[in-house]
């Protein structure tokens, strides 16, 4: 039993990959620049040096090729962890993900398993150029056969990645890139919560804020700010977008009677739409206000100098909280 260590989300994922590579010889890490460079975010730093080119594989610049060959490797018994360099570059692989990776287990009536993890650094807030700041999670969560998760803390980053790699289903693992350098405690010997279980990360009584990945921190900040105004907000870290843990959320909303969902992705047909629809159905007589959503606009992710305006922030969250409380 090792003592908890303080580390960044980036380091936690690196450690998680390292441990997985160590404990299971079938685990592979693959993607563009994951080798010597350690990835553009250094998430795979040092892994090729220690595990060799055979297990930490620099691939040609072709995302469909990365996922398509990862499927083949999984068919051969490997457990590939494939990196997509940035959110906006997953689309060339979308066909392989949607028509093959997601459906092959069912197609084979269960005879084939595809334990492939696709790591995608996602979301904005880092001042990047086009295609480097998107949040496409709804486009994966809508597709049956995929599991979709996103950690918000170093501990979850570490454990959820280990669980994702151990999972026999394909997992799309969205990494909140602007939180890569946030620190937190990681206890590598703790027994983790199930991969798809939501977590109440702050208790409150007046309204529930639901978020995942990068927006959990924003919601916690909003809850602190609201406290100063005498409002008690509960914050739920959903952790998983497919499946979504509606039971935990429902319990929270039955208590607080109000819900605001926050994500960076565009609101229109974002995960918040499903959450609003389903929680309204489950809690129809409990809700004092409609479920409100805070998220991106129906617009291409804007140039960096506008992203502060585009992204949900403390003010936008609190504005919706005000609106919900005004009902």
């Amino acid at each position: 039993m090792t003592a908890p260590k303080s580390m960044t989300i980036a380091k936690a994922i690196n450690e998680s990959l390292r441990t997985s590579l160590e404990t299971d010889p079938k685990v592979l890490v693959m993607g563009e620049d994951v080798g010597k460079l350690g990835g553009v975010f250094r998430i795979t730093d040092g892994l090729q040096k220690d595990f060799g080119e055979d297990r930490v594989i620099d691939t040609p610049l072709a995302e469909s090729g990365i996922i398509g060959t990862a499927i083949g490797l999984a068919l051969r018994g490997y457990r590939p962890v494939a990196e997509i360099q940035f959110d906006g570059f997953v689309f060339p692989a979308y066909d392989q993900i949607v028509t093959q990776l997601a459906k092959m287990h069912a197609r084979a009536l269960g005879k084939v398993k595809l334990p492939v993890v696709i790591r995608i650094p996602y979301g904005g807030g880092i001042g990047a150029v086009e295609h480097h700041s998107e949040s496409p999670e709804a486009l994966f969560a809508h597709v049956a056969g995929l599991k979709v998760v996103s950690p918000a803390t170093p501990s979850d980053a570490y454990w959820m990645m280990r669980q994702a790699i151990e999972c026999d289903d394909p997992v799309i693992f969205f990494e909140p890139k602007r939180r890569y350098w946030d620190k937190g405690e990681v206890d590598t010997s703790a027994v983790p919560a199930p991969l798809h279980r939501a977590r109440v990360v702050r208790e409150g009584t007046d309204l529930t804020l639901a978020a995942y990945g990068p927006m959990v921190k924003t919601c916690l900040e909003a809850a602190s700010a609201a406290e100063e105004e005498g409002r008690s907000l509960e914050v739920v870290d959903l952790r998983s977008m497919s499946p979504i843990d509606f039971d935990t959320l429902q319990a929270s909303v039955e208590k607080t009677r109000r819900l605001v969902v926050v994500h960076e992705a565009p609101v229109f047909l974002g995960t918040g739409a499903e959450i609003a629809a389903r929680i309204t159905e489950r809690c129809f007589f409990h809700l004092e206000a409609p479920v409100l959503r805070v998220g991106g606009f129906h617009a291409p992710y804007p140039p960096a100098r506008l992203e502060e305006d585009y992204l949900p922030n403390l003010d936008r969250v609190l504005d919706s909280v005000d609106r919900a409380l005004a009902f």
Partner: protein
Amino acid sequence: MSVKSTAARSSRGGAKRRGGAGRKPELVQLLTPEGERVEHSEYSIDLTPEELRGLYRDMVFTRRFDGEAVTLQRQGELGLWASLLGQEAAQIGSGRATRPDDYVFPTYREHGVAWTRGVDPLNLLGMFRGVNNGGWDPNQNNFHLYTIVIGSQALHATGYAMGAAKDGSDSAVIAYFGDGASSQGDVAEAFTFAAVYNAPVVFFCQNNQWAISEPTERQSRVPIYQRSAGFGFPGVRVDGNDVLAVLAVTRAALEHARSGEGPMLVEAFTYRMGAHTTSDDATRYRLDEETAEWAAKDPIARLKTYLANEGLADEAFFAEVEAESDALAKRVREGVRAMPNPDPMAIFDNIYADGHALVDEERAQFAAYQAQFEGSEEGAAR
């Protein structure tokens, strides 16, 4: 300058730039359409009479159950069928070149290859009947599921081959695809990955001249086997209606792969004698003359002629094969008719290996919904 007609354009481009083609005969052939054995400088084969008769038997069986499937579709027992008529040599020859431990990635038309791998034809018919979307265990015969999205499986095959190499195994992998598929980005990416990782995979393109209604000139203005050179591995065109040549060339290609030489492309030059599928009407886009021309190159007829002329098989043998194939057809016919419809609750099965809360919820809701109708006629609940 305007875009000129396909024919003019492609022949100009083709003629001018075939380049490497002069280096070797363009089409490897060991058995002529007339059933005469010929030799080839690079590829040779020496089969026992029994092996030769085996190939014949395989082709006849394949054609027979394929034809039965067409009939079953007409009778409404299948929703669709993609006939391989005319491509028996390409499939039997290449399939018989594989070893049991090799792995095969088919498209949706490799019924003959499936046969050589020991997959029961009935298993193939499930998806065309609409009772499943695949459904055999790929690892039982190292024969992957049929893949409908054109070209996808080329990457799966490459990844599988990368894995086989990592394992230190000397198994090889063979990926089937069509002339149309050669245009898909996935096939090109498979070429790149296979070359870069030196993966032991053979890309086997059955150029049957058509992608539904489009002739091969809509996909390429040079022969497809030439595609691989620019990715750094060899390509060869073989007479796809000559089972001996296909066997010899595929064996060599698999040997090339398994001995660490990396990927290879084989283009089997053949012809789709039937429509694209039972839903297709080939008379809308192609001429009878072309079909007639290819009928004269029939893969089964030429082997039969050879066997007969050389005294390698007698009438009794041919009659026996005929009888056996009738029995096979009967078994397929009866088997298909007896295939039960799946239980509606199967909709919720095997979506995830490790479970998923939403699926559980929807399964339970649907079960409750279905229970309303229990004991009543469909819809009688209202």
